[in-house]
């Protein structure tokens, strides 16, 4: 498959009074046309920043320090503000986490869906209106013709997320970034939204970057998975290989932290401790203070992301010959 996006050694830092937060510290990945990539990690692991950096949407005190992000032949990090704006919403769109706060509360949702079409001069006002109504139908809003004129507060959380999806799909983007699209929703609604996204992906053949803290969700939904910890990629694998053989102690820890009714009682083994402070991250492997297999080398030397087998990379000193040798 052809490559749509290739990110190389991306680094994004935030400048705070207490010091420099290295939120994303040298990550590389690639994404093919039609591929779904899952980025998994705890809050503060840099998963959202690693993607918003590409579109220049990080907060004011943040800066992309280096790296490149080749999208469709162009380096997103070197584009002018205007060139980047032309890509936002048209070639790359985003579904944000909280549909309650991500829609303008005092603007009719129909207008909000029309905006990207008009801003990118793709359609006339009237055609944009027809397209927005059509999109509402596609994402499964009942009575979509009248609801076009409603305000966000007149929708439930799940319906608002459908509106967000309609908005993201408006310009037929090549890449949709879904930033925890189901986290703020009820469980029952969550499944509906995931189904809808799956359906859209099949229909429109777009690539998706799916950001989530729920590792089992990513395993169900994605083709490839990236596990991030403290601003770095610790494991990068095709989903088949990852399901068969998750290697990094952190990945295993995440899996052990999820409930599995088939396993016996006591199988829930949370990772002890908290994610590290990213102003002064731990020496060596950033995960070593929380790792149950920690050895001397882990405290001294930072592990590199090595290819263990085809389509399976791990950053851990203790992984040898396709196994975690602890």
């Amino acid at each position, binding site marked *: 498959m052809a490559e749509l996006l290739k990110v190389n050694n991306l680094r994004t830092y935030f400048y705070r009074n207490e010091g420099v937060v290295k939120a994303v510290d040298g990550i590389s990945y690639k994404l093919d046309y039609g591929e779904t990539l899952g980025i998994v990690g705890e809050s503060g692991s840099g998963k959202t920043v690693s993607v918003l950096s590409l579109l220049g949407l990080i907060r004011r005190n943040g800066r992309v320090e280096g790296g490149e992000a080749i999208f469709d032949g162009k380096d997103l990090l070197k584009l002018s503000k205007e060139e980047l704006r032309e*890509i*936002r919403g048209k070639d790359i769109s*985003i579904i944000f986490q909280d549909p309650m706060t*991500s829609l*303008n*509360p*005092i603007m009719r949702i129909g207008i909000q869906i029309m905006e990207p079409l008009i*801003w990118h001069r793709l359609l006339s006002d009237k055609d944009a209106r027809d397209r927005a109504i059509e999109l509402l139908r596609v994402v499964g809003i009942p009575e979509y013709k009248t609801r076009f004129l409603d*305000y966000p507060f007149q929708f439930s959380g799940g319906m608002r997320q459908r509106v967000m999806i309609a908005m993201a799909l408006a310009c037929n983007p090549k890449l949709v970034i879904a930033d925890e699209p189901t986290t703020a929703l009820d469980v029952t609604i969550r499944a509906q939204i995931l189904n809808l996204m799956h359906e859209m992906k099949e229909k429109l053949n777009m690539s998706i970057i799916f950001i989530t803290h729920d590792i089992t969700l990513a395993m169900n939904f994605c083709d490839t998975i990236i596990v991030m910890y403290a601003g770095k990629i610790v494991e990068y694998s095709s989903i088949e290989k990852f399901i068969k053989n998750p290697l990094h102690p952190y990945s295993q820890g995440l899996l052990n932290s999820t409930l599995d009714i088939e396993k016996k009682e006591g199988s829930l083994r949370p990772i002890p401790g908290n994610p590290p402070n990213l102003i002064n991250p731990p020496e060596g492997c950033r995960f070593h203070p929380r790792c149950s297999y920690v050895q001397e080398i882990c405290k001294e030397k930072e592990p590199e992301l090595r290819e263990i087998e085809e389509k399976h990379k791990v950053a851990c000193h203790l992984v040898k010959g396709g196994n975690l040798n602890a």
Partner: protein
Amino acid sequence: MGLVKYILRRLFTIFVSLIAVIIITYILMWIAPGEFFNIAQFQASAGKVATLTPEQLQVLIKGFEEKYGLNVPLWKQILNYLKDAFRFKFGPSFSNPNEPIEVQIARRFPVTLTLAILSMTLAVIVGIPLGIIAALKRNTWIDYISMFFSMIGSIIPAYTIGVIMVIIFSVYLRVLPTSGWETPKQMIMPVICVALGPMAVIARFMRSSLLDVLNQDYIRTAYSKGGTDRAVIIRHALRNSLIPIVTIIGPQLAFLFTGTVWIENLFRVPGLGQLFVNAASMRDYPLLVTSTFILSLSVMLMNLLVDIIYAFLDPRIKYE
């Protein structure tokens, strides 16, 4: 339909609140030391009242009390006042027995109204853009300078600025007249002085409101859809950030309606402020109660107006 019902219900609340305000005012005046007659006597001590014998004075006071209905119990006085007040009949004042208060007010109100509206317009026209610019250029020298001036506007009292302006523009530059309220040229300084306070408040409010909105998730959404700065700020940020500004403009305007005492005094503007301040210092009770009545009424009506405008600006608000 909902709107008419809503307004009627609010008007009823205003009616009840006004009664409460009047009762409290009467009680406060009754508690407060000092009486019109003592003060009038003191002020006229060189005049003819002081030369009267105590008996003559008693007769005079008795006649006075009868004329103003002060010879009945307090609750009856309140009732008598309320009966006429809602028809805007306030009777004569102590200090000006020949002219009913409503006539005195009617003569002065247009002046105060003009001053209030001109000043508030100026405050809005300058304050809102100032706040917007400060927010958009936050933490730059543009922000610091505009907030410095708005700080000055809210710290230094209007009458001080008024005096400084008179010194600069009337004494040294000789371009503006010092007082009066007939020609547009005479209005310039009073209007600017009255406008400075609200202008400063509006600018600071606008700045923080816009900054708050710019940090909202939906602004990021708008940028993610490919909006230019211009489109995002005008279409998404400004309208949302203007909503809270309406709340502060309403009450500010209501207070300006009842006069801006110091400025009116300084520039000899024949408005309501002077009338009401004299009422307090002279213990001119009918006038004092009426000024409270008018101030309360205009604050409450302004709040009602603000709430109605609010609902037009924000679709989430419904009249219940």
